[in-house]
């Protein structure tokens, strides 16, 4: 056993010196390999973490959202429907919401305007000057991120609280004014009374909080309608049942269950991550071809070296072991360097490189730090996606090189 260990040490030492003797070729290979691992690992880390992040945030979302549908399109929700829903057994509370989109042609961006809870109800505008801090309760024992935090900013008529994305895009902040063109063509000026916390920027980057009264004035919506309503259910196992009762009693209403939203988010980010991996699989394939070429295209110097080793008493298996260690050193170094760089890239620099492709299409990219979520399954998958193709691509050429006749060293006459 001691002899075997000592032999491996000799072979590893010799392999390291061989790698260093061909610095340019090997560092080139290592750099390319690391880049491939970096790209794939970044995509995996990002997709997985953003899904986790979104699901944690959305756990605080309402259990059921009810919309009115006209001709298959989302329409304004009549306030009179709220009583019908309240009468359904199992419903704990019904809250109306006012929200919508506003297109800002100046920066070509869409903002999401929302009236905060307890401020959007048809007749709740009187409370609008109250100091609001939204803290969501814990759900299922897991801490849940609040959808937004006002951090003490006061929302009153004529004011707005804006997401960080908007603040960055328009280069505005607390105390500044922002003009809006109302539904009737009049210009409405709002003062910014604060910005939203960056903790939940994934969903609040393009968000604007506005009082119900101002919202109605801006979009011309009367007191008899709201955008939609949220429904809280006493028993979580009855959510499906309550949703089906709403459908039965209000045929033109569409109840959306929170789990459906989570599934949608999941599939959106799976799709984006998958799309990135499909695009980069071409890069992986190119790398495998490159590795094959590098390994099979042994230089005359390398062939001669193998010939000498065999002539002085190295077996074919010793040469294969040497090449195995060479491949292992390159692939493991590239794998770990790529994974560490990807970790730093995704969790410390906010995915600087892939941000546009992975986060969305908006002009208002959320700017937030992802909480690192890495699981072993991900790393194992990545290992098999990168290290195994490289090993397979190099094994045949290595075997071919190792079977060079030992007497080739005797035939060599040039130096």
């Amino acid at each position, binding site marked *: 056993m*001691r*002899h*075997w*260990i*000592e*032999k491996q*040490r*000799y*072979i590893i030492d*010799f392999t390291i*010196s061989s790698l*260093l*003797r061909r610095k340019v070729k090997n560092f080139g290979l290592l750099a390319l390999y690391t880049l491939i691992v970096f790209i794939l690992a970044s995509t995996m880390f990002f997709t997985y973490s953003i899904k986790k992040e979104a699901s944690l945030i959305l756990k605080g979302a309402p259990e059921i959202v009810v919309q009115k549908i006209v001709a298959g399109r989302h329409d304004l929700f009549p306030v009179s429907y709220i009583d019908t829903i309240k009468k359904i057994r199992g419903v704990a509370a019904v809250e109306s919401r006012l929200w919508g989109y506003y297109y800002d042609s100046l920066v070509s961006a869409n903002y999401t305007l929302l009236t905060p809870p307890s401020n959007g109800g048809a007749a709740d505008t009187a409370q609008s000057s109250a100091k609001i801090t939204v803290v969501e309760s814990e759900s299922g024992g897991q801490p849940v991120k609040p959808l937004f935090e006002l951090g003490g900013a006061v929302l009153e008529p004529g004011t707005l609280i804006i997401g960080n994305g908007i603040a960055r895009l328009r280069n505005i902040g607390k105390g500044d004014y922002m003009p809006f063109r109302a539904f009737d063509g009049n210009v409405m000026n709002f003062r910014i009374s604060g910005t939203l916390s960056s903790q939940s920027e994934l969903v609040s980057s393009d968000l604007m909080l506005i009082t119900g009264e101002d919202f109605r004035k801006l979009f011309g919506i009367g007191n008899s309608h709201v955008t939609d309503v949220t429904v809280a259910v006493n028993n979580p196992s009855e959510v499906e049942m309550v949703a089906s009762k709403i459908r039965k009693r209000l045929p033109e209403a569409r109840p959306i269950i929170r789990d459906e939203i989570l599934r949608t988010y999941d599939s959106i980010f799976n799709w984006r991550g998958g799309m990135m991996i499909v695009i980069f699989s071409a890069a992986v394939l190119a790398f495998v071809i490159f590795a094959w070429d590098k390994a099979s295209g042994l230089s005359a*110097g390398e062939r*001669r*070296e193998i010939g*000498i*080793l*065999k*002539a*002085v*008493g*190295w*077996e*074919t*298996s*010793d040469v294969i072991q040497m090449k195995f260690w060479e491949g292992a050193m390159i692939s493991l170094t590239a794998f770990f360097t790529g994974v560490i760089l990807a970790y730093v890239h995704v969790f410390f620099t906010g995915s600087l490189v892939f941000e546009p492709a992975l986060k969305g299409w908006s002009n208002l990219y959320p700017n937030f730090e992802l909480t690192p979520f890495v699981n072993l399954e991900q790393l194992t998958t990545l290992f098999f996606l990168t290290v195994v193709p490289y090993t397979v691509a190099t094994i045949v050429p290595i075997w071919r090189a190792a079977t060079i*006749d*030992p*007497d080739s*060293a*005797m*035939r*060599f*006459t*040039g*130096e």
Partner: protein
Amino acid sequence: MIELFNVKKVFNAGNPSEFSALNSVNLFIEENQVTVLKGPSGSGKTTLLSIVGCMSRPSAGRVKLKGREITSLPERFLTDIRRKTFGFIFQQPNLIKGISVLDNVMLPAYPLGEKRSHLKNRAMKGLSELNIANKAASKVEWLSGGEAQRASIVRALINDPHIIIADEPTAHLDTKLSYRFMEIIEKFKSEGKTVIITSHDPLVYESSMVDRVVNLRDGQIEG
């Protein structure tokens, strides 16, 4: 010690470029003697040497080493015999560039997994005996022709082989270095080693220490 019976070696068999390098060679090489295989280029000297040294197999015929048939042994057994029994000195020093003289000298012993300190001591002793111990840490590309030749001799001896095989060892050496080489061969002989040399250099085959000269021409032994 080494016996060859009807040894033939054919390259590219079955192809239009088929070439017969050795034709029915019968040879007996005695122990503790210096044998020179002499002949012009293309006479089959190197091919014969590579068969004797277990580097290649004959196309036909048998080879015996100390009475043991080795022709049909699998590659790893043949490698083991080659490693422990033979020391090779090539026409060119065939040292590996980019690593030190000491590392080059120790290379044949790596697969045996010997303790590093023991191996290093042995290598340094060998380098001292040939007066190149001061070059142990130097890279081989910095050596002169004679130093490189001596380094390759130390490498050939690192596993303490019984038989030294040298292929045209003086082909790239000047007269002085060639004489120096023959002195080293004499020392091997005095230590009880068997030496087989291919050469068409008179300085080698006319040397007084040579016990036997075998003439080869067109793949056959003359006389």
